[in-house]
C-alpha cells in the first residue's frame, strides 16, 4: 500500500504563468547527440594527433 507522506512529498508547488517575456535560456542539458558529437570530436582529434 502507498505511503501517504511519501507520496505527498513527491508533489511540488507549481509555478504560475508569467506574461513578461521570460528569457528562456537554451536547454543546457546534454542529449545523446551532444555526447556523440563530443565523442566524434575526440576521435577526430585523436586521429589527427
Amino acid at each position, binding site marked *: *500500500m502507498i505511503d501517504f507522506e511519501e507520496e*505527498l512529498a513527491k*508533489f511540488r*508547488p*507549481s509555478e504560475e*504563468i508569467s506574461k513578461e517575456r521570460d528569457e*528562456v535560456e537554451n536547454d543546457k542539458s546534454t542529449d*545523446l*547527440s551532444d555526447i556523440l558529437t563530443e565523442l*566524434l570530436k575526440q576521435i577526430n582529434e585523436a586521429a589527427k594527433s
Partner: protein
Amino acid sequence: MKCLICNVSLKDGYICPKCGTDHSLYVKIQEAANAYYNRGLAKARARDLSGAAECLRTSLQLNKRSVPVRNLLGLVYYEMGDADLALKEWRLSRLLKFRNNPAEHYIRDLLEDTDEVNSYNNSIQKFNLALQTIQEDGNLDMGIIQLKKVINLNPRLLKAYQVLALVYIQTQQYAKAVAVLNRCLEVDRGNICARAYLNDLKIRRLVENKKVPLKAGEKERADVIIPTKVRDVGSYLLNAFYILVGVALALGIFWYAIVPQIRSEYESVNHYTADAYEGKIADLNQEVADLTDQLEELNGTIGDMQRSAEDAESTYQRHASDSEQELVNYDRMLEVMSLYITHDYLDIEDAFAEVSRRASSAEAYRDAYKVVQDNLSTDFTTDLLVWANYYRDTQDYATALAYYNAILEHGEDPNALYWAGMCHVYMGDPTLAAQCFESIGENFVETDFFEMAMEQLGAIRGTNPDVLKAQYRQQWQERQNNPENEEENTP
C-alpha cells in the same frame, strides 16, 4: 544534414567529405528520437498524456533540438494542467526555430487570454496553498476544500486530482477517491499515479474485506466533486453525428409534414387574396368601362356643342357680316342720297351700283332705293345734261366734260358728243375733240350737230368743212345701202 565537426553538408552517405567523420550512429540516434516522438504522438492521440510526455522527454534526451517534440510536449503539459511547463517548452521551441513555428501561436494564444492566465494562476496559487495546508499544517479537511476549489477552477490540473485522491485515501473516503481518480484517468488514461492509487484502493478494500464496488454508491457521491468532463475527440464526433442525424430528421419532418401545411395555408390565403383582388379588378374594370362610356358620351356632347358653337359662330359671323353688310349698304345708300340731294350726278351711278336692294328689309331703305333707281333710269341723263351745260356755261370745262362723258356712258348722244368735243377744244386738246366730231360724222349725219361738228373738224384738220360733210354723208349713205360693209374710208 551537416557534419557535426566541420559543418559541411553531407550530400551522399553519412561520411563527411572533409573530415571523414562517420555520422551513421548520429543518424540512428536521430531515428530513435523520431521513433519516440511518433510513439509519444500516438499516446497523446489515445489520451495517454503521461505516456506521451514520457516518450517525448525520451526523444528530447536523444535530440534536444527537435522543435516538433517540444511543441507536442508543451501541448501535452498544457492538457495535463501544467501550463507553466507548456509555456517553457514552447519558448525553448521558439528559440530553436523562430519562423513558421506553431509554438509562437501557442504562446500568443495563451498569454493574450488574460482571463485564462489569471484563472490558471489563481488555481496554481490555491493548489500551492492547499499543498502547503496538507503538507505543513496537516489540515486534511481544509486541504480537501481547497483542492475542490482548485479543480473547479482548473479541471485539467491532474496534480490536484492526485493529491485530493491521496487525501481521500488517507481519510478512508475510498469511494470519493475512486471517483476522483476516475475523473483523472478520463483526462489522462495512462496516468501512472492515478492507476497506482486505484490499485492501492483495491488492495485496501481487499484488506479491509469490504465489498464496495469501485463505482461509488449514491450516498458516497453526495459531496463528490464532479469536475468538468474532459471528453475525447471520438465522443465529440459521435455527438456531432447524432446532432446531424437529429437535424436531418427534423428537416425531413419539417419538409414533409409542416411545409405542405404552410404552403396550403399560404395558397389558400393567396387564393383568397387573389379572388378578392380579382373581384376588385373586375369592379374596377366595370367602373373603367362605365367611365369610358361616359367619356364617349361627353365627347359626343362636346362635339355637338362644338358644332353648335361653330354654327352659332358662323350664324353670328353671318349675321355680323350681314349686319355689317347692312351697315355698309346703309352707308352707301346714305352716300347715294347725299349725292342725289346735292345733284352730284357724276358719282351717283357708281355709288348706287354698290348699293344692294336686299340689304335691308326696312321700308325706308326700300323706298329710298326705289326713288334713286327710278330717277337714275328716267331723268338721270337729262339731269346730267343740264348740269353739264351749266358747268360748260360757267367755263368749268373739266367738270362739264366729266358730265358729258357720263352721259355718253349711257349711250351715244350727239349733243353730249358735240359739247364734249367743244370742251376738249376749249381745254386745248384738239385730238380728243376731233374724235368726238368724227364720231358725230359717223353716227349722227342727220342731226343738227353734224354741220357744227364738221365745221369744228375742218378747223382742227385744216380741211374744208364741206368736203368733210360730203365724205361723211357719202359714207353714211353707203352704210345705209349696205349695212354689212363696216369698213369706211376715212378722209
